[in-house]
């Protein structure tokens, strides 16, 4: 690894923060959903960096698990989005305010 591993980690933190920002600035459910993927990938990148540092394959296995998790979450999340769309024909998080107080 020619670069300082810390540089990779900084990239990972930046992606993580961008993912979080997506939650704060967007109302579209699907884009919020994309932000989750961004956050997960940030974590995955950090793990791969550390796996490289320690020469440890466990990190790679965990990456595989994150991938599977992302797939599972997208399946559930998208079907919920569809269920909502059937009811409301809207994909706006600001519309999810029936429960509050």
């Amino acid at each position, binding site marked *: 690894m020619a670069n300082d591993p810390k540089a990779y980690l900084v990239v990972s933190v930046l992606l993580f*923060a*961008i993912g979080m920002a997506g939650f704060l600035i967007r109302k579209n459910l699907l884009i919020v959903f994309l932000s989750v993927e961004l956050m997960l*990938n940030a974590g995955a990148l950090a793990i791969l960096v550390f796996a490289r540092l320690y020469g440890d394959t466990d990190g790679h296995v965990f990456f595989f698990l994150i*991938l599977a998790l992302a797939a599972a979450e997208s399946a559930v999340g998208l079907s919920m989005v569809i269920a909502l769309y059937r009811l409301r024909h809207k994909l706006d998080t600001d519309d999810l305010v029936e429960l509050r107080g």
Partner: protein
Amino acid sequence: MHQVFFWIFASVAVGAGLLAITRKAALHCALSLVVSFVALAGLYFQLKAPFPGILQVMLYAGAIMVLVIFVIMFLNAPEEDPSEKISKPGVIASVFLLIPFAALLIGVILHSNLPVPAAVAPDFGTVASIGTRLFGTWTWVFEVLSLLLLAALVAAVLLAKKRLD
């Protein structure tokens, strides 16, 4: 050379990531994210993790994101949707919360004593090594993971099937 590729991949990943949450149309966002993920795959290759890199391109950018894009194209109404707008208070909150947050984490990382990168075995990051590990020592986690995927499958059926009852 390595250095140059790192900067290219890193800036593309971050830049496309930023676009992914700021573009107006959901479809554009998703496509930006795919770009970001491909750039990330490049970083993974640099980290001597070829198999995760391939998975990233094939499964993440390829399969999962395609699913998302499908849904976006199915559901998104063609006309301008107010939900596409960016929330101003959200931007302000992001600036005030996330810049310190990121700075804090970056500070922690920069001040940490990371180990010197270990010399790695030649099969590090290959399908064989990961597969052996996953189906060798990590069988239990793999079993639980299969429950997770089954649960996701059943959940998708429960939620999205049109005529269930």
